[in-house]
């Protein structure tokens, strides 16, 4: 397998739209040719080599090509878009649309990823070791065909609208999920190892959602049908099985109605919190070291609540309420 190493040489002033960073495009190209591929920033067109130092050449086919981005690509969109094979490894963060419309191969992001990662994906594997934002594995705006195959694994937390219109494949979330998980789903499987906030499976027709840390607020259109034992990671667990969304149409197979199912771990959390029932929100607080880092980041500035909230989400991986953030800002000022 040939390895192409991209080392960020310049931080883009705006955001780079670079759908060419993909084994399918790099295959069969020399480092010179790869460097000449175009990228867009705003309404201007640049060359890839304006922002990256390129070493190595592409393999004969996409499957023989591995791309390593050795630094932060937090301002680079569309990495691995429509890729069908090969491998991409990003040692830092990535911006939106990582692995969008991906059909095969493997992408590993060591840092965080922004929204729309893996949208309308049909195959392959996308791993994000940090957090990811909204609309992961969802459908393109307006479309009804979300993720249809492949695997997305996110070690950290995710934002809202993950798995919207999903109808195949697997999304495995290591942390918590914000609202609107699997809206309008028509198949597929989602595992949330942390807590799912609420509005899970709205307008869901088919598909399975496993929530190990409980659902904060279950939709009224889901009904608890029975308890069931299921295996996750080789461990047997008891789940309460909810059927829904009862407000939607549902198909039949062998005379039985097929529902979307939400499996809520009966005793998922070690502190013994009851699943299924509305669970008190987990209190998150910054430790002193984090507060010091925050104070340093905004020294001399007058940040808005939303800016600080975003910074906390990006840096520490959890979401505070605006009121908490506001109090925090006051405390730091004092």
């Amino acid at each position, binding site marked *: 397998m040939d390895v192409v190493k991209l080392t960020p040489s310049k931080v883009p002033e705006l955001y780079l739209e670079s759908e060419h960073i993909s084994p399918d495009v790099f295959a069969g190209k020399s480092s010179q040719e790869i460097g000449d591929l175009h990228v867009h920033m705003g309404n201007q067109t640049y060359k890839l080599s304006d922002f990256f130092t390129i070493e190595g050449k592409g393999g004969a086919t996409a499957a023989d090509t591995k791309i390593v981005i050795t630094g932060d690509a937090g301002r680079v969109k569309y990495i691995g878009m429509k890729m069908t094979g090969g491998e991409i490894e990003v040692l830092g963060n990535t911006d939106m649309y990582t692995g969008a419309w991906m059909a095969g191969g493997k992408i590993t992001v060591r840092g965080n990823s922004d929204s729309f990662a893996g949208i309308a994906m049909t195959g392959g594997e996308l791993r994000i070791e940090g957090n990811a934002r909204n609309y992961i594995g969802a*459908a*393109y705006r307006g479309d*009804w065909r979300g993720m249809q195959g492949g695997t997305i694994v996110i070690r950290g937390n995710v934002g809202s609208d993950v798995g919207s219109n999903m109808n195949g494949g697997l999304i495995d979330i290591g942390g918590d999920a914000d609202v609107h998980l699997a809206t309008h789903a028509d198949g597929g499987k989602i595992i949330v190892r942390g807590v799912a906030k609420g509005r899970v499976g709205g307008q869901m027709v088919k598909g399975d959602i496993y929530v190990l840390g409980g659902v904060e607020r279950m939709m009224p259109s889901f009904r608890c049908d029975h308890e069931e034992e299921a295996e996750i990671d080789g461990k047997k667990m008891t789940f309460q099985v909810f059927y829904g969304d009862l407000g939607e149409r549902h198909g039949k197979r062998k005379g039985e109605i097929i529902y979307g199912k939400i499996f809520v771990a009966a005793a998922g959390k070690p502190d013994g919190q009851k699943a299924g029932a509305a669970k008190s929100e987990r209190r998150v607080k910054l430790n002193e070291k984090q507060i010091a880092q925050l104070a340093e980041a905004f020294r001399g500035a007058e940040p808005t609540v939303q800016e600080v909230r975003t910074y906390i989400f990006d840096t520490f991986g959890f979401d505070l309420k605006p009121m908490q953030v506001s109090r925090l800002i006051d405390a730091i000022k004092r």
Partner: protein
Amino acid sequence: MSEYIIKNGTVYDPKTGVKGEVKDICVKDGKIVEKVSSKAKSLDAKGKSVMAGAVEVHAHVAGPKVNEGRNYRPEDKLFSYKPGGKNTRMSGGFSIPTTFKTGYEYARMGYTTVMEAAMPPLYARHVHEEIKDTPIIDEGAFPVFGNNWFVFEYLKNNEMDNVMAYISWLLKTTRGYAIKIVNPGGSEAWGWGENCNTIHDPVPYFDITPAEIMKGLLTANEKMGLPHSIHVHTNNLGNPGNYETTLDTFKLSQGIKATNKFGREQVLHHTHVQFHSYGGDSWATFESKAKDVMDYVNANKNMTMDLGCVTLDETTTMTADGPFEHHLTTLNHLKWANVDVELETSSGIVPYVYDPNIKVCAIQWAIGLELALYAKDPMRVFVTTDHPNAGPFTRYPRIFKWLMSNASRQEMLKGFKNSDKVIAATDLASLDREITLYELAQMTRAGPAKSLGLESMYGGLAPGMEADVAVYDFDEGKVASPEDIEKAFSSAEYVIKSGTLVVDHGEIVSNGNKRTLWVDAKVPVNSQVERDVQMKFLKYYSVNLNNYEVSDHYVPNPYVIEVDTN
């Protein structure tokens, strides 16, 4: 203006009866002429086919529902954008392209006149704003009359003079071209949660039947002598077994002769007949009734029709047939937009995927082609896709391929997943007719132009006619593969529109000089209709009368066809 001479092309022109003769075509001052001076620019067409610019009789290309389609289907534009060029603006979209793409793509296929098939009068301003933004092609728009309260009331009371006065007023107010009728009565019944499934189902409250509405408007149209006949999309669209409703509708025109001074011979144009030619009583027994429908059309010279061919693409259905769109969304569970247009009509939009692996879709595909192949008089049967309902207009070249090559049709038929069932439910496998280029010119040029009452302007290459000419890199005698047909018609070699070269080797070189056609039908002053209009606006409409009329600045380059019915 410039002069052109198109040299040594093989000319196909039903208007002058030229069937593939090598001839020069001369263009001067926007018209076809006998001779040009030696300064004329010469375009070499040796070994190429020369035809008049094509005329589109029915497409949804401008207005609120097209725009709502664009609005609520961002996925239709995904990956389809093309940046602007020297003579073009940015364009994109597939089944519901931007206005600019609409103009460019029609022109590239050699189409120079296009009729927008359904204009809700209340939103006529929007229709004309989009028409204004569609470059190159001449356009007209048909306001919808089939669910209009004025029409219902006047017809119910048998007040034909008032119907005519109202038609005249609405055509002028909306800058409209012809009388469009969509699911007569049914779209209004939808306001009561009902529909009219046969032409004899009464409309709730108004107590008038679709048959009475169509017959009344037909009579008014002929009394007024408008350029086009009534343009009908009848009840019961898209349902198995609906061909009987279709034949009942056709029979409304039986024996009636056209009266007009535009050379039009039909009194009824029925649109997208493919959607109205279904047999069977469920989706399981769904079958083609193209033969029964075409037997009637072939035997009755006073009607014309267009096909509405399914192209087996992912598209966006949109029609003023509100109840049908609701029916469709319950079938495919995709997103649905719907609106009630006050006293005039309703409308709906649903995306649709015509999947060749689904039996019904494949049968629909076959029916569209059968209709054309059964046609005895190509001057009365026109190629359309009811864009975008059965497929986008950009697929016309593919339909030409299927019509002109039996081999390409049979290959498609054999390739379907449910091939046996499709062949059993249709006659397409046994139809080996291949449409000739001359017949194609009748179906896409001379025929539609005549049906629209525009035969003296469009669709032909006789001296004095509009200089709309298309040259294709296509030689009927030397077709190596059916794909050549599609390729040649997708991208014309040259297109001249009103004497301006707009397409050169498939590239847009000019934005032409587009016009909007509308009909100004003069009737005697009718104070009752004037008063009724004012009353309805005061009582029911959400807008003021002054905010309703399409004033002149919406139509910057009009071509007015005057009809005097005094």
